[in-house]
């Protein structure tokens, strides 16, 4: 059993069906889907193989942080290797294939490497295949490892390069970023708001907690409208801020036409921005941490927050029988949301022994709680079938619980990449190193970001 589409919900456009090809077969999704959510909705859990041992890999996240769903997009001269399925917006006629699998994703001959993995440790081949000459063996070894295939023809697309100046640049359009942009726009200075996703909102797109006394969706709608109405605000969607350089220079990568079918693309496909900013506000949010345990790379293991994204954005459930492993409260929100959508939550494994109000909510819904335990091993061949857990404290016994999906939440890591690149120390996120940078929201160590920004 694997992922499926719910009858209602999500922000997808159910009136517009979109056909696409994955691994040579034809599937259907909806406008507003990503390739990842459409694959999940079609019950596909195996999307790739690992680099060396060719172990089966499934979708693990829903956005930028996806490590497994790496695909080859399109074919011939327009092909692009190694894109994340979670960042590819679905368009009609999209063709995607898994990377580096032979002869097929389900039956990969190179997976035999996995059986002898004890004997082929890291750098084994560099030492073993030296006689009579490394170049005798190199081509076949290079073919066995590696990811996608580079295009052999010249790139048919056009790209653009643009310089810009702005007083304030806000990276990340979550609650903190939007609030920062709104506050900055009030003073009449020029503001640029940069968001990597096609929609503004970040975590607000998933969470249902009220913001400033109204529902997150209503607040987001109002704030987006307010931002769009201001002539001094530029909003860049599908744009990634990839570098924070000297004297307030930010590098941006804008994907202008990647979400359109190739025959509807006019003008440049992508744009490189070099923006000189008076002030940079980093509101880059946080990524959820995974849990370390044996075989935690099995398809069916997924970040809890990502499952919530799939549910609330695309109305896709990652499985039918879900177990959650957590060490913090945020995964309970996910569990309750999935439960309310009619998906079975078989157990919540929490490494803490005392849990607050969220555990009472879960117990009210008759969700089994296993406190003081942590997952130690996932079992299954091409998809997780059960997870065994062991006590962290002495109150619980060792056990195992069957599932087709395991959601993990090991806490949250602030997205400090740009912050660190600016020369600051990640441990002191509230104290930026440079006068032209400031940090809001999750990276500043604040969970309720709006409260802080109101200051």
């Amino acid at each position: 059993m694997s992922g499926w589409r719910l009858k209602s919900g999500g922000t997808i456009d159910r009136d517009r069906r979109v056909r696409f090809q994955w691994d040579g077969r034809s599937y259907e999704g909806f406008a507003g889907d990503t390739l990842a959510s459409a694959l999940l909705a079609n019950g596909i859990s195996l999307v790739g193989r690992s680099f060396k041992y060719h172990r089966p890999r499934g979708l693990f996240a829903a956005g930028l942080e996806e490590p497994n769903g790496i695909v080859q997009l399109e074919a011939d001269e327009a092909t692009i290797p190694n894109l994340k399925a979670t960042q590819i917006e679905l368009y009609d006629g999209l063709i995607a294939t898994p990377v580096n699998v032979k002869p097929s994703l389900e039956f990969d001959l190179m997976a035999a490497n996995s059986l002898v993995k004890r004997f082929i440790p890291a750098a084994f081949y560099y030492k073993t295949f030296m006689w009579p000459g490394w170049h005798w063996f190199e081509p076949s070894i290079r073919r066995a490892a590696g990811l996608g295939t580079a295009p052999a023809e010249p790139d048919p697309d056009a790209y653009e390069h643009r310089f810009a100046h702005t007083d304030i640049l806000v990276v990340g359009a979550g609650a903190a970023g939007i609030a920062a942009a709104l506050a900055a726009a009030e003073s009449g200075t020029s503001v640029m708001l940069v968001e990597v996703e096609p929609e503004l909102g970040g975590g607000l797109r998933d969470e249902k907690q009220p913001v400033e006394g109204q529902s997150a969706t209503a607040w987001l709608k109002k704030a987006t409208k307010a931002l769009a109405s201001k002539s001094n605000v530029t909003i860049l969607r599908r744009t990634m801020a990839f570098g924070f350089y000297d004297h307030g220079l930010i590098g941006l990568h804008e994907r202008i036409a990647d979400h359109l079918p190739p025959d509807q693309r006019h003008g440049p496909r992508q744009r490189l921005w070099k923006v000189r900013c008076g002030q940079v506000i980093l509101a880059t949010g946080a990524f959820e941490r995974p849990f370390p345990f044996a075989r935690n790379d099995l398809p069916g293991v997924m970040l809890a927050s990502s499952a919530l994204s799939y549910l609330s954005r695309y109305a896709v459930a990652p499985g039918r029988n879900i177990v959650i492993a957590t060490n913090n409260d945020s995964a309970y929100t996910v569990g309750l949301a999935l439960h309310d959508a009619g998906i079975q939550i078989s157990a919540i494994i929490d490494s803490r022994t005392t849990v607050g109000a969220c555990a009472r909510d879960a117990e009210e819904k008759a969700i089994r709680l296993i406190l003081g335990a942590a997952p130690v091993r996932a079992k299954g061949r091409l998809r997780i079938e059960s997870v065994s857990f062991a006590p962290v404290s002495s109150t619980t016994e060792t056990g195992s619980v069957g599932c087709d999906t395991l959601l993990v939440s090991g806490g949250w890591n602030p997205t400090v990449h740009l912050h660190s690149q600016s020369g600051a120390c990640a441990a002191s996120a509230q104290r930026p190193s440079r006068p032209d940078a400031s940090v809001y929201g999750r990276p500043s160590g604040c969970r309720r970001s709006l409260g802080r920004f109101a200051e």
Partner: protein
Amino acid sequence: MLLILCPYCGPRAEIEFRCGGESHIERPGPYSEVDDGAWADYLFTRKNPKGEHRERWLHAAGCRQWFNVARDTVSHTILAVYPMGKTRPPTEAGT
């Protein structure tokens, strides 16, 4: 990429400039009295400080004027910009 305040054109991106190395190096003389060590110093020995550094810059893709810059080599902050031929004005870091 640095944002350099050209004294003649205003703030411009580093890509328009050429760095001419350390400033305020005086040619020793008269020639007949200078030993090899002092010549070698003059020609080759350069400071490489961690902190404030005085250097010459040319606005090559702009006004083509030379000028002096006091730059912090750690934070890349430009502490002062002043014309060629001027003696070094003190900056906050003060060297």
